[in-house]
């Protein structure tokens, strides 16, 4: 499967082969199968959204790709190389922004670059560049608690992009935000994607969001512990709002989502 979008080249960037994950309960002999036989190929520059009911393993899958879960079955290749541990190659954005409250906006991005061992003479330029991209230059000396929820996620985005990762993993980053803020963040995120051509994996439980943002939507099922269906969305992103085909797709996915019940 590939996307006919104009801003991704059909090179397989992230390849998941027969990925599975079990959680063992230490007290009993029970085992909880969360993922089983997950096979999917993400293309370079593709924006893929993942939806599914609670317990379908979407967050676990993201954690495995990021390296937060070390043991899993199967194989994951990024740009041809098997993934190893945690790395700034695969940066994750969380629902609650993991910005450091003891630092200012500028310092938060700075410390990220320090940890990624970027030399000092390059850091300031990089920080200023990405702050400009997310339109928060005026807030570079504010402390995190002075920022709104939406602003915090924008700083998190800037920080993630400043690390120049190979893939951006986003775990319901907008779930806790107001709908008006969400809408402006969608625009911003899509614009960023268009500019930077980053490969993005975006997990959400919001079908609207998944369809508005994704080149491709992957539906996962807790019953299968795997991917149930994939939907490629050919409609250009700026034409998706109030589009009747999109509305049909929303209905279709909703149906598929609740089919097992």
């Amino acid at each position, binding site marked *: 499967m590939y996307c006919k979008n104009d801003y991704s080249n059909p090179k397989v960037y992230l390849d998941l082969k027969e990925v599975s994950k079990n959680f063992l309960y230490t007290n009993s002999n029970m085992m909880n199968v969360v993922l089983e036989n997950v096979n999917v190929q993400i293309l370079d520059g593709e924006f893929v959204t993942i939806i599914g009911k609670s317990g379908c393993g979407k967050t676990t899958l993201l954690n495995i790709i990021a390296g937060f879960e070390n043991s899993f079955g199967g194989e994951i290749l990024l740009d041809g190389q098997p993934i190893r541990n945690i790395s700034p190659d695969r940066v*994750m954005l969380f629902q609650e922004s*993991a910005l*450091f409250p003891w630092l200012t906006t500028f310092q938060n991005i700075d410390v990220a670059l320090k*940890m*990624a061992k970027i030399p000092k003479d390059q850091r300031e330029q990089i920080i200023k560049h990405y702050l400009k991209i997310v339109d928060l230059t005026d807030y570079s000396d504010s402390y995190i608690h002075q920022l709104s929820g939406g602003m915090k996620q924008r700083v998190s985005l800037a920080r993630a992009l400043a*690390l120049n990762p190979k893939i951006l993993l986003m775990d319901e980053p907008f779930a806790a935000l107001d709908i008006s803020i969400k809408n402006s963040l969608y625009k911003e995120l899509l614009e960023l994607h268009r500019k930077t051509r980053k490969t993005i994996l975006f997990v959400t439980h919001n079908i609207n969001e998944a369809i508005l943002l994704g080149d491709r939507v992957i539906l996962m099922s807790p019953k299968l512990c795997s991917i149930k269906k994939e939907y490629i969305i050919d409609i250009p992103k700026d034409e998706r709002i109030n589009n009747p085909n999109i509305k049909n797709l929303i209905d279709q996915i909703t149906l598929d989502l609740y089919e097992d019940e």
Partner: protein
Amino acid sequence: MESQIKSSKKKYNLSKNIVNKDTLSLIVFIVSFLALWQLVYMLEIWPKVSLPSPFAVGQTIVDLLSDFTLVKGTAISLWRLFLGFLMSISIGLIVGLIMVKFLHFGKTMSSFALGLQSFPSIAWIPFAILLIGFNDYGILFVVVMSSVFSVMLSTYSGIQNISPIYIKAAKNMGAKGFSLFRYVLIPAATPSLIIGMRQAWSFAWHALIGAEMLITTLVGLGHILAVGREFSNMSQIIATMLVIFAIGLVFDRFVFSKIEEKVRDRWGLNQQQN
């Protein structure tokens, strides 16, 4: 422009009002306290020999200051306090970090430390006298034993209680080992560390005066108290008590409170409801 000046003037007046109210109530409090004291003295609820008047104590303070006893005593006591406090911080931080690194040791040690944290500081003195000596080092030993566990525990729990998401994010960005420690663990644990240090300071001060009173070969504020008792000089005793009280207050209010405020401000923990 004019309205800006007006509103800033208004702000200034308002804050002046608040300052005035606070200082006013403080002055009223102190004056009432002194008046009550004078009343108790004049009514001879305790014999005049046992409880001197505030004026007599005031005079004693002046005397003790002019012959430098108070100055010397304060200086020596504070010197011991700084030394002991510094030692407590160093040992407490290091052991606290070891506790975090080796979790089994950490768990056992924390129960041990909790018990010792509330151990009466005076009860260390006989042990210190026999083991270390009836000298400065004995006093320092008591001071350290009374305060080190606060630092240890606050370091341990401070780091243990760091929101795991900060550590997750930091590791994601490539931090490990020392850089994780330096860029995340210590800054994230700072609010807890400061609270621990504040408590350690307070315990150290308590322990110090007690130790100075009983290990009396050397000068210090506690020593002055002990001498006052020897010579039944109540004025001297009360005067010294006031100095001890003042020092404790000054350090807590103008040093530790300020530092804690600053950290809480930065973290946004001081959100006020209007």
